[in-house]
């Protein structure tokens, strides 16, 4: 803290109270309004857990069944609330078990404050029991990390950690605290961090760029918007809607942008990307101005970059300067928060009517409906489809549920077919594609939004990566609704094997236990459905349940997700079958 300590100390003038470092940790969290953490105790973090016990009236801790479960739960909480998720783990394996979740949160810009215990400072580097260099390990996947070796550092470091996790483009931070620092004494006073001299949380927008962009938008004949999670993170849903409605621009979402705009909005033309909708993918290569808002041109969105929107002028609204021109060369980059920049551009854009251009989307949507969507939602073959399960959920919830999806075919079906009427309703592992994410994330999502219906949609593969968290549901009574879409395969990998590896199904066939019995062992009401005529009632029963509920749907084994942009192909070469 050599340089920064000085700076923070100057700000810290309020009265102090003596306490242990461990107590200070809890105090810091409470000061930041964080009264819920997910975690797993162990030797090096025991002093903090002792304080969790003492503060149990004010501070709640959810014991998960694995540290990975804790961090995914914290991610689910953060994604539905916008607040940082808090995670505790011990040193060594406790800390390393967080790494997947940290990497997931980093790539999906999810605010997290992870606190790990560490061996006492005099043992650092001695290969002590459960010692691991979690600072070194987590550096490439954290927005910031810091090792505390003295109790006196705790208030400043936590204040910084919260500020960094939440501000600008959010992300995970990790604080590693040696055991002696937890036992040590600190004169506690807390001041929230509002500035770090080396960190520019949000760049200032340039009004000239906004005017330039407006001119381009006003002259566009075929403008097209792709929005991402930046709209949700920035709380800019209303500004976004005002902007698209005034300019009448067809708009498509990335996977992580879903639910920022209601599915039924006339200008919502669906989802872009590898398994996105036909029209927005094809017409990416026909638009004259492509307006990217709070998104980062992931390769799953762009397909082959050499053929991506080459005909279009590109405008990029973005908070992170490192994302500008990273994958797609932009003509006009508008840095800043989308909440501010979209509000600002409103006065310069003209009211427009792009009805003729919109008809091209309608035409292609009809093709997709005829060739893909209708068959998914109203299948005639005997096996159940993932699409019809989503259709059934839409009917019961009217789009008013938080859908937490895992990773694989079912995720793409959930993203393609789930209806959304409220923002922050789609929680999924987008960038990292972490199987096992959904079950624990749904627990955190339910705790973050207890008044909402939270439905986890998971494949039989991903479910078995973290189904130990049924124990957390048993203990906390988190009323999540779990649907496992079971096709007895690692479906997405199997689909690729079918299409690109001549049906050599290497290690994708999966034998699973009796999922219903497993759920029942955890005292969770459960049923299995394999016939079409039973599906609607089963979903109705599940939604009606006040408690957690488990529904296994046995799915047609070799069903595929289409449309699909094969790897290396152009977005406009998207396949319908």
């Amino acid at each position: 803290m050599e340089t920064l300590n000085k700076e923070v100390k100057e700000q810290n003038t309020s009265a102090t109270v003596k306490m242990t470092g461990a107590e200070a940790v809890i105090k810091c969290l409470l000061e930041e309004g964080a009264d819920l953490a997910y975690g797993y105790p162990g030797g090096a973090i025991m002093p903090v857990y002792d304080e969790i016990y003492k503060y149990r009236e004010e501070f709640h801790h959810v014991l998960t069944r694995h540290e990975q479960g804790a961090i995914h739960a914290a991610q689910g909480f953060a994604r539905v609330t916008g607040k940082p998720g808090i995670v505790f783990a011990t040193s060594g394996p406790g800390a390393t078990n967080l790494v997947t979740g940290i990497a997931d949160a980093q790539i999906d810009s999810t605010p997290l404050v992870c606190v790990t215990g560490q061996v006492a400072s005099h043992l650092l580097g001695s290969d002590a029991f459960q010692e691991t260099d979690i600072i070194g390990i987590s550096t490439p996947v954290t927005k910031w990390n810091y090792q505390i070796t003295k109790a006196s550092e705790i208030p400043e470091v936590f204040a910084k950690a919260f500020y960094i996790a939440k501000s600008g483009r959010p992300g995970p931070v990790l604080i590693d605290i040696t055991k002696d620092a937890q036992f040590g004494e600190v004169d506690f006073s807390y001041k929230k961090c509002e500035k770090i001299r080396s960190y520019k949380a949000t760049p200032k927008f340039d009004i000239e760029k906004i005017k330039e962009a407006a001119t381009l938008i006003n002259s566009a004949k075929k403008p097209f918007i792709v929005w991402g999670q930046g709209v949700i993170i920035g709380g800019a849903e209303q500004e976004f809607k005002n902007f698209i409605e005034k300019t009448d621009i067809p708009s498509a979402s990335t996977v992580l942008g879903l639910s920022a705009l209601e599915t039924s909005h006339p200008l919502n033309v669906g989802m872009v990307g590898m398994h996105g909708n036909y029209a927005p993918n094809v017409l990416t290569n026909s638009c004259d101005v492509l307006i990217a808002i709070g998104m980062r041109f992931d390769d799953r969105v762009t397909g082959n970059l050499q053929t991506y929107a080459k005909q279009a002028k590109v405008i990029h609204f973005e908070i992170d300067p490192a994302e500008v021109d990273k994958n797609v060369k932009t003509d006009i980059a508008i840095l800043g928060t989308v909440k501010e920049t979209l509000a600002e551009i409103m006065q310069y854009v003209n009211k427009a009517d792009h009805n003729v251009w919109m008809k091209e989307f309608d035409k292609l949507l009809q093709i997709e409906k005829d060739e893909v969507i209708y068959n998914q939602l109203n299948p005639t073959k005997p096996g159940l489809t993932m699409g019809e399960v989503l259709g059934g959920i839409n009917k019961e919830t009217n789009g008013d549920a938080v859908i937490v999806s895992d990773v694989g075919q079912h995720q793409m079906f959930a993203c393609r077919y789930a209806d959304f009427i409220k923002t922050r309703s789609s929680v999924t592992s987008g960038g990292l594609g972490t199987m096992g994410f959904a079950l624990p994330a749904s627990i955190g999502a339910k705790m973050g939004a207890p008044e909402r219906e939270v439905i986890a949609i998971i494949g039989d593969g991903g479910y078995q990566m973290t189904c130990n968290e049924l124990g957390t549901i048993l203990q906390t009574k988190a009323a999540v609704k779990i649907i496992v879409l079971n096709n007895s395969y690692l479906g997405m990998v199997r689909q690729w094997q079918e299409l690109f590896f001549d049906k050599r199904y290497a290690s994708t066939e999966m034998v699973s236990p009796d999922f219903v019995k497993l759920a029942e062992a955890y005292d969770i009401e459960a049923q299995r459905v394999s016939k079409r005529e039973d599906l609607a009632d089963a979903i109705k029963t599940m939604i009606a349940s006040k408690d957690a509920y488990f529904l296994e749907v046995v799915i047609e084994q070799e069903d595929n997700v289409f449309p699909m942009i094969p790897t290396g192909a152009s977005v406009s070469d998207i396949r319908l079958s």
Partner: protein
Amino acid sequence: MEEIKNFTFSVYTENNVGILNRLSAIFLKRHINIESMTVSKSEIENVHRFTFVVNISEIQARKVVGQLEKQIEVIGAFYHTEDEIIYHETALFKISTEYLYDEHIQEKLKFRRAHIISITERYFVIEASGLKGDIDNMYEKLKPYKLLQFVRSGRIAITRPKMAISELLAEIN
């Protein structure tokens, strides 16, 4: 294919534990080999300056500098082409004293930035500084004298254009 050439990065950071790891991880993630690296104080109190030399394309250099700049404790990051900087490296050569009065070695030391900085009964030490090529030349010349030890520093570089880091800090403060 864009031209691959030498780029020198100047990165101004806070003086905290772990920053080197965080910066080098950015090169590692992109499979970029660091040719040389120097860390030192800078012209501003409590601000450190990292100098990296890497051989990449300018597009890559621009992206890397964006990622460097993004790190919380990085105050400013810049990349420079060779003609934008004045740069130097230093090398030390430890040679057995038996060669000290060798006429040829004396001749070779006439390179203007090489001199003897220590002489003992058993060995003497030559310090040389200059561009990478100068040091390479010197190395080739002295190699026949059975180098007991050889070490060279990473590049240090000063930019010809202004870097305005003090102004940046003043603005932030």
